[in-house]
């Protein structure tokens, strides 16, 4: 009995290390890098993580199942992302003039699905602190990433962001992606 149990555990461990473990590590590194690009305001590189048809989506309610044709806090393809980037970089973006910065922590990464071609669906949790002028705000929630495996690494097909406070009133607004 004990022998059989040991064997099963060994088998499971081997599978975890060889198969899932490398995916898990790669996805974690990707998510950390994405968060780091946001916090260091490298918007162009951040947009570059999306596939050409990639979408960044923040629904107003967790019950939503599609961004297409529904109210959305964010529902942006790369073109709209470039409008947002262009706005915050413009010298007359008044709301961006005061001191402003964020700090993301990403954790609880779960690989939901991995396809034979290496495409991945991953879920994770985030916590973000924002400083603007003298005001601190905290946001938290979950990410769902649909990642496409390419020669250059993962590219985002869809990033869904569910804010824990999605349905609460927003004290001021969100200016950049979370």
């Amino acid at each position, binding site marked *: 009995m004990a022998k059989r149990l040991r064997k099963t555990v060994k088998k499971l461990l081997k599978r975890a290390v060889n198969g899932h473990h490398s995916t898990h590590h790669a996805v974690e590194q990707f998510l950390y890098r994405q968060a780091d690009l946001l916090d260091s305001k490298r918007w162009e590189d951040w947009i570059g993580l999306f596939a050409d048809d990639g979408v960044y989506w*923040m629904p*107003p*309610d967790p019950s939503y199942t599609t961004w297409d*044709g*529904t*109210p*959305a*806090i*964010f*529902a942006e393809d790369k*073109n*709209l992302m*470039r*409008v*947002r*980037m*262009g*706005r*915050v*970089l*413009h*010298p*007359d*973006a*008044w*709301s*961006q003039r005061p001191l402003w910065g964020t700090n993301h922590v990403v954790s609880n990464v779960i690989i939901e699905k991995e396809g034979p071609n290496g495409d991945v669906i991953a879920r994770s949790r985030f916590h973000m602190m924002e400083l603007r002028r003298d005001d601190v705000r905290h946001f938290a929630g979950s990410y769902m990433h649909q990642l496409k495996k390419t020669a250059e690494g993962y590219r985002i097909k869809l990033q869904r962001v569910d804010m824990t406070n999605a349905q*609460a*009133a*927003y*004290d*001021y*607004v*969100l*200016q950049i992606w979370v």
Partner: protein
Amino acid sequence: MLREPIADLSKCVEPDRVRREVYTDPQIFELEMQRIHERVWIYCGHESQIPKSGDYYTVQVGRQPMLMVRGSDGSISVLYNRCPHRGNMMVGDRYGNTGEFFRCSYHAWTFHHDGKLKNIPMYESGYSGTRFTRDNPDCSMKRAARVESYRGFVFCSLAHEGPGLLEFLGESKVAFDDMCDRAPRGEVEVVPNCFRVIQHSNWKIFLENQLDALHPSVTHQSTGRAAHEVEKQLAKKAKKGEAPLSYHMLSAFATVTIDKWDAFQTINYPNGHCILTGYMGLRPQDPDTLAYDKIMIQAYGEKRFKEIVGVNIHHVLIYPGLSVQSPLQQLRAVRPLSVDRTLTEIWHFRLKGAPEPIYRRSLAYYNLVNSPATLVNADDLENFWKCHQGLASEGGDWVTFGRHLGRDIEKDGHVETAPNCGTSEAPMRNQMKAWAEYMRG
């Protein structure tokens, strides 16, 4: 009750300027709630927010927590969200369904949808011989003094006296006509989502900005430029040479340069209401528009159709609490929270019977301009906050509204801006005139 310097409110408002305390004094704020918001007609919501019996939606009217509820007979009541027994809030959720009756979570008093007492646990043994008889109105939930709706838009007034809703709205009712008439079936329904954003500024600063035709090219230059750059790239790639309309809606902030805004017009009505004429255009030759036109002509006939789409409106401001963008089927309701905090509740409506692309066109505007991640309003809110901070200082006593003063044209009880004077501060003068009249009490 008021401190000496502001006791005489009549000295706070002159035809072309207003004392700064009007925006920053907490006591004036309390008085405004009493004399304006808790007296005039305030927008509660749209009938389609509460389609089924027992559906309710809470709403703040002045300082009063109210709820709008659908009865089993289909009628709509607006009640104070308060149990008459010990004052407990009747519903704790922002919206929901109360079932066949309200039941207080404290001592289980129950009430019909119209607020009338239904039952009290062990009523006979507990209350016989007391003044708390079933027909005592103090044993029922208190109702708003008056409730009226126009084309599905529900308003309440917490005062028994005063003009009826239509008289109060006057010409500003065009906001609802323009929105509903654009639907082939003559009605709209709410898209079930409300974006709620809090501004750190006095409620009047937001309303004054709504019809301020000079600000867009200054405040929104960054968005306009950024959108225009991407729009140009997309147009180059597109077969017909046009980027999606949503890019044009944003780029207009930059392409309509500051000197061109005088070409628009505001029309100012009694009670502080006003209209800003349209400037964005909805692409009359676009295939989506043409398909929609066809359905509209079938529904209304050629002549009426032309009248409907010929209505030239960008914003309608219904003072003191509603900004309606009828051609794009959205509205912002203003809920003052305190002298320096204002909640806006932003809704989008679907034109019943209109094709999907028309819904999507206005949805794009709703998401891009009015969501909590707005590409546009972030800079407005920044200005509102800065405005409020400046007014709280002693760096000056007045806010001035002198632009194009004396050039406005008065006719038939309303004030129009003169040709090529669209940036006139007439809407602010008009709002403050109404404010002063209301505050006289």
